[in-house]
């Protein structure tokens, strides 16, 4: 129990991290027939990154068609954004991963040059 508490306290202090939840999103019916959606949350704690790109993949990492407001989104430092990802019902069995990837600006101010990607899995 203490280990989790310490870990939580440690994580709350991050000011330079990429967080994408939930780990296992559930697809729900949307207001459009034949279209499912799930809501993901991205918390940008990386001061060197302002843009994130989203993608949906099958189990073999092939791209699966999806829709969302913007597939590359501006998320400012310390901003938390809820993102709805829409997927065709016929692709339901194919969809495996929903990923967010930090986009670094070429020749930009990023000192780390570390690109981060987090993928959630649809079970």
């Amino acid at each position, binding site marked *: 129990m203490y280990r989790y508490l310490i870990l939580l306290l440690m994580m709350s202090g991050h000011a330079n991290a990429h967080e994408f939840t939930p780990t296992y999103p559930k697809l729900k019916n949307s207001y459009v027939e034949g279209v499912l959606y799930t809501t993901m949350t991205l918390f940008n704690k990386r001061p060197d990154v302002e843009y994130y790109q989203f993608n949906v993949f099958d189990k073999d990492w092939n791209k699966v068609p999806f829709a969302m407001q913007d597939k590359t989104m501006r998320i400012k430092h310390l901003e938390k954004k809820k993102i709805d990802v829409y997927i065709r019902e016929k692709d339901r069995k194919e969809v495996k991963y929903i990923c967010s990837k930090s986009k670094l600006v070429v020749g930009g101010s990023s000192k780390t040059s*570390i690109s981060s990607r987090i993928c959630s899995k649809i079970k």
Partner: protein
Amino acid sequence: MKKLVILLFCAFSAQAEEMEVVGNVESKCIVTPDTAGVYGNPTPDVLSTDPTDGGVDPVVRFDVIQASMYKARILYPTSFSESPALNDVVAWTGDVATSQVSDTGMSGYDAAKVEFDNVTEFSLTVAGSTWFKTETQADYGYGKAFPGGVYRAVVSAECIAI
């Protein structure tokens, strides 16, 4: 009159209430760039992040709240994201390893890692923080000197739900 005072007193007296504090521990993975990498230039044809070559290995930290729910996949670069014009081949080599762990149970991560191409995968089987360092080296042509200028390359750190 006395009753009125008691009534007023009761009306304004403080009341004890129970307040709830709610917390939610959910499974998640957090990727944190920890140390910026720097290329050293020990010989004219080599750029290396190895500290013995005057470089700094980039370090990235993975935090997982629950064990065995994610794997870390780290890709060392195989091209420059920014460089002067290069007219010969650059040969890339690299290695990814743990540099620090928050739990002794993570000591087996290096022995169990899976490597292919420029990818190294670690199963994050213990909850906590793991720091991974990525060592890369770029060799230019056949003993050719790298042209002067700024060189950048990107290490990709991925956390994938399993």
